[in-house]
């Protein structure tokens, strides 16, 4: 919103003010101005929640108070459009103080340093390994890349922070990783930071290829549980570097209203490629990598629903998956189904899905939900309504349907991924609404 207001001011040469709910207005007037726009856009603020309310409530906010100043809202609007500029609002050019972060922190006791790391919100509030130079130097032996190489610039909340190999190594030490994990974590760093939204999103990290066995990632029993060091430290490293590199701090620019416990480990696991049915390709091969490539793939979403019980012959497994998937918002048509190898076997041998793609296509054709349920989700309102208003199909037609009409929201079967993991102990599965991005080569970071 501040970007919009700034664009209008710069291009149209007219004053432009913002209206934001009280839950995020301080972010807009503070962090955004400081790190993103540089322009101290004037705001007025309405109570939260703003959307999802009866019409009378939104209308009533106009005759209510500005949550920033306490003035009547419309007085605040008029003042924002007509009030004289302050000294700060007239400032231009480079800011007087650039943030400084020393490479080494001042020496202190171990106890005090641990408290500092927590105070700065550089940890996940579990114990970390303090990143001494000796430990980081040892970690850097895990890659041929130079410490000062910039992996990416993280600008998601502003600040244009340059994430280097050395900074990733520091976070890898903190997470308890070993040097042999570093190439995996460096590849993962290209996808940082993790999801951060008021809606409490989370991430999924899937390891593919020979690296799984070399580093003993768990792809079998308890693949998604706390039973393996590689799964634990790589998943944790993503959290730590997302927080440090993204400068994500609670109520400053990290505002997931409920948070998401998946953010502790980011569901880091390996695909059980050795247990795939014939004809079912590994995830990374589906993406165009060679079977011998080592790849890391990151997904983003919100929800995971477990099968709870074992598969039953009276109701086919994929029917139950379909039923559970109908509760997802289907944003971006995305879903990731994680299934035990025994379930993969059932789906192929009993139900005839010769490839993962066939199963994805079946879900695309068979998952339905009511029109009201689809449009009743805030994320869909933000993302799909503009498509509908622009006349894009099927969204434009869906908007005209009655509330109880059934639609097939997973319009793109290619956005539905199937990953096989687990130890053949039970015919269990998870359906998730995680959308997976293209995988990243781990080999490139050796």
């Amino acid at each position, binding site marked *: 919103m501040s970007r*919009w207001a700034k664009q209008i001011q710069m291009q*149209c040469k007219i*004053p432009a003010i913002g209206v*934001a709910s009280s839950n995020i207005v301080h972010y807009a007037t503070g962090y955004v101005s400081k790190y993103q726009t540089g322009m101290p856009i*004037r705001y007025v603020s309405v109570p939260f929640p703003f959307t999802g309310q009866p019409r009378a409530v939104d209308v009533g906010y106009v005759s209510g108070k500005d949550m920033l100043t306490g003035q009547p809202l419309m007085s605040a609007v008029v003042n924002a459009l007509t009030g004289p500029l302050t000294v700060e609002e007239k400032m231009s050019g480079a800011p007087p103080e650039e943030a400084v972060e020393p490479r080494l922190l001042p020496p202190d006791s171990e106890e005090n340093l641990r408290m500092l790391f927590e105070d700065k919100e550089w940890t996940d509030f579990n114990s970390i390994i303090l990143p*001494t130079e000796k430990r980081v130097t040892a970690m850097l032996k895990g890659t041929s890349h130079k410490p000062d190489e910039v992996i990416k610039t993280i600008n998601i909340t502003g*600040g244009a922070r340059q994430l280097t190999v050395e900074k990733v190594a520091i976070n890898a030490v903190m997470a308890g990783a070993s040097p042999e994990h570093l190439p995996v974590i460096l590849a993962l760093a290209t996808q940082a930071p993790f999801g951060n939204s008021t809606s409490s999103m989370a991430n999924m990290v899937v390891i593919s290829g020979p690296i799984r066995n070399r580093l003993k990632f768990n792809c079998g029993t308890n693949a998604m549980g706390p039973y393996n*060091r590689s799964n634990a430290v790589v998943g944790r490293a993503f959290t730590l570097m997302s927080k440090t590199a993204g400068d994500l701090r609670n109520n400053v620019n990290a505002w997931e209203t409920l948070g998401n416990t998946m953010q502790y480990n980011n569901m880091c696991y390996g695909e059980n490629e050795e247990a795939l049915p014939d004809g079912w390709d590994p995830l990374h091969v589906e993406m165009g990598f060679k079977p011998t490539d080592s790849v890391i793939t990151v997904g983003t979403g919100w929800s995971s629903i477990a099968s709870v019980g074992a598969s039953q012959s009276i109701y086919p497994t994929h029917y139950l998956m379909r039923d559970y998937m109908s509760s997802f918002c289907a944003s971006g048509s995305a879903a990731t189904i994680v299934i035990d190898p025994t379930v993969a076997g059932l789906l192929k041998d009993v139900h005839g899905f010769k490839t993962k793609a066939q199963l994805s296509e079946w879900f695309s054709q068979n998952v339905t939900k009511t029109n009201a349920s689809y449009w009743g989700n805030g994320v869909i309102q*933000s993302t799909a309504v503009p498509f509908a208003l622009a006349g894009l199909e099927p969204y434009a037609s869906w908007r005209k349907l009655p509330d109880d009409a059934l639609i097939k929201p997973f319009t793109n079967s290619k956005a539905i991924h199937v990953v096989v993991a687990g130890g053949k102990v039970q015919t269990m599965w998870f359906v998730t609404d995680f959308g997976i991005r293209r995988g990243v080569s781990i080999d490139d970071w050796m």
Partner: protein
Amino acid sequence: MDRRKMLALLGISPTLIAGSPAYARTAPRAVPEVSSADGSGSITVMNPAIPGKLATRVPLVPPLDTLQNKTIYMVNLSWEGPDAANYFYGAMREWLDKHYSGVKTIVKVTAEGMFGGDPSIIKEIIANKADAAIVGVAG
């Protein structure tokens, strides 16, 4: 009989068994010792934080002297749909009509929601010589 009971009967602590390298699935990893070189108890560690580049400051456009006879655009960013902001802007328009003679308000819904662009709105604001804009509502 479960394994814990069995081991207890044999007089063997499950904890000892679990700690045995023969039982462990991965070998214990040695973490280099940390000690201060000067014996003071202080250690030096590396900083995980990355300095954030502060944005170049841009001054605000000068404000209006009055809203009377002005044209004000209300840009609806369609956050979680356009409806809530449309209701809100509708009430704002009524208030402005009542309190400022000659004020003209135009509501535009962005084509791509909050995170996309819409050059047509910018062009229209310029073409119509609008005097101010209100952008919202995010939350």
